[in-house]
């Protein structure tokens, strides 16, 4: 019962509250750098929240990460550098778009593979049905009917 309420409160904190993320004091002066920071923030997970990027979250940790991303950008890191740095600190969990690794091969290849398999199966199905229909010989009754029709 209290656990339930606590969970609810946690859920509540995660998604309601003043659900505002980037504050003006965090923002970079250079609009180009700030745009890069926003773009990266949208791809980073707020790890204490539930399915929120650090760009959307108002949690303390999200704020820290936003500031960190901006620090790295100001130091001259490329986008890839920033992401690598964050993964080295927080693990793959921080990435909302998982990298292609042996562990995520199935995840990334499944849509294409399924599409190919499905298309292949559908193609084979129509081909097989067609050949079945074409190769089926006439039954004796049909032969008789055909003959009669031709004679008429």
């Amino acid at each position, binding site marked *: 019962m209290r656990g339930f309420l606590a969970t609810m409160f946690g859920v509540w904190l995660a998604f309601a509250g003043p659900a505002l993320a980037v504050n003006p004091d965090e923002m970079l002066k250079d609009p180009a750098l700030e745009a890069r920071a926003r773009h990266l923030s949208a791809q980073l997970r707020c790890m204490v929240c539930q399915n*929120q990027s650090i760009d959307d979250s108002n949690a303390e940790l999200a704020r820290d990460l936003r500031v960190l991303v901006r620090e790295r950008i100001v130091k001259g890191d490329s986008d890839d550098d920033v992401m690598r740095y964050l993964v080295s600190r927080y693990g793959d969990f*921080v990435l*909302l778009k998982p990298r292609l690794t042996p*562990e995520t091969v199935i995840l990334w290849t499944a849509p294409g593979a399924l599409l190919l398999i499905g298309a292949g199966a559908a193609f084979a199905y129509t081909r097989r049905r067609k050949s079945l229909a074409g190769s089926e010989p006439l039954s004796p009754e049909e032969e008789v009917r055909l003959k009669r029709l031709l004679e008429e």
Partner: protein
Amino acid sequence: MIIELGHYALVLALAAALLLSVLPVVGARRGDLALMQTAVSGTYALFGLVLLAFGVLAYAYVVSDFSLLIAYQNSHSLMPAVYRFSAVWGNHEGSMMLWLLILTLFSALVALFGTNLPDRLKANVLGVQAWISTAFILFILVTSNPFIRLNPAPAEGQDLNPVLQDPGLAIHPPLLYLGYVGFSVCFSFAIAALIDGRIDAAWARWVRPWTLAAWTFLTAGIAMGSYWAYYELGWGGWWFWDPVENASFMPWLAGTALLHSALVMEKRDALKIWTVLLAILTFSLSLLGTFLVRSGVLTSVHAFATDPSRGIFILAILTIFIGGALTLFMLRAPGLKAGGLFQPISREGALVLNNLILTVSTATVLIGTLYPLLLETLTGDKISVGPPFFNLTFGLLMIPLILAVPFGPMMAWKRGDLLGALQRLYAAAGLAFLAGLALYYFENGGPVLSVLGLAAGFFLIFGALADLVYRAGFGKQTTGIAFRRLKGLPRSAFGTALAHLGLGVTVLGIVAVTTFQSEMVAEMKPGQTVEAGGFALTFDGLKSAKGPNYTEDRGHFTIRRGGVAQGDVWSSKRLYTARRMPTTEAGIRSFGLSQLYVSLGDPMADGGMVVRIWWKPWILCIWGGALVMMVGGFISLSDRRLRVGAPNRKLKAATSPAQGLEAAE
């Protein structure tokens, strides 16, 4: 006392469901008509008992009887009456009761409208519905009993989660469940057909209206949920690829595929086995969605229940129903005779392509949703699969689908003419490109490639209209005749066109808002003005106000464009007194189909406020398109052909107004 009555009604309902699970099915096996006929009255009784139990819960909430544990936990006597009522399903136990109520409602509707169903089929269908009811009543009674009472009764409730105190809660879950659970009827029909080992075009004719109804409600439910999240959560997002959203989106995708494959089966007696499998899979995804939301395996912003014992129970239900259905399918499917032949380039071929892409999209969403869970279970490694993944993979899959949609209705059955369809759609494609270009210039901004996205949306819209134009024979006949023929087209033709057109409107809204939206974050003091989305917003200051169970600070903004006043907007921050929880109530002002979205942030030390302003161009198209799809669904549903008990096709063809007209000419 009244609450015990409800409790008792639910226990009786369990007994009724158990009987109903056995008697009609046994009757159908033995050919015993009397046993088979118990299905109808039994189904009504079951629905009546569940309705009584649900009514008791609702009564306890509305009169604020806090001796009921879940009313104490989730209600407050100061809440407006409509929220006291909708609070019934604003928690785990109550929402399962709503699920059950709608499930038994659908069973009762099958009993009511199924007067022309063959006795055996009807007995089996209602029997299978009762299996599902039994499982869920047991689940409710054993793990989530809503009738638990408190003694002594507390004087006041703990209030409903403030985010749920919204008209959205009154509308969104019932619509969503009508969709989710509506697919149970398709599932039951599929199982009944497999039990019987017989399936034909008539089966598809009985299944299609239920699929269509469930699909229409699910469309409405998802769209409503998306709009609710958009205005309530306060950061202007409308789709988060959240596991709970995915849970409702997967049955929608599979249901859309089912809707189309049932069409092939009904018209051409083809794709039977596939349609049956899809009917099973669609409801399985509904069950899986319930599991994902209820078990707490995927913690997400919506999951208000997290309790593993429930999870294990639902997992058992899932295993039995999905595993059992698929086993039955494997045993029986080879015995089902495959039907009509068709060329790859044909209406059937187009619908197969539709099914292929929709099924793969469903699988993609499913894999993406479950992958982190499976990986963590197997290896202990934690990864996240979020919006960037889904936008990329799902987006890529949608491109060929969107481009193919206008071609489908233009193709003839059995053997189609792709070149002919291309010629017919030439004008629509050209116009769509021009419209996309025009919109891009008009909105002025964003990557050039988005012109193609906008054009794709317009192509769906113009393609759907072109289909109607060609069917009516505009250009070939005199305009008068064409209009008469247009009026004579079957309603399902309009339904199809509207559904496809609505999809186009949604696509247009998604592309436009993604491309053209702009955001402004500023620290504002009263009297200050900022520019956002081509508007000038002046912050006039904060005002305190008091609601029935909350206090709020309301910020007032005056909107000007080019110096001309365009109205004003209030945006507020609320504090719900019972739970001491803050919420933001975004201020939203519509300009045509676009919206200005104003959200208040934290107060600054120097008396300023952080204010966030979004300009969301064309955003209303996203939900407007869903509304059009829904209207299309209902129009199709009102078609004679789909009406249960409608005369057979030959009769219809002879009296069809379009044909009558042609004959009269």
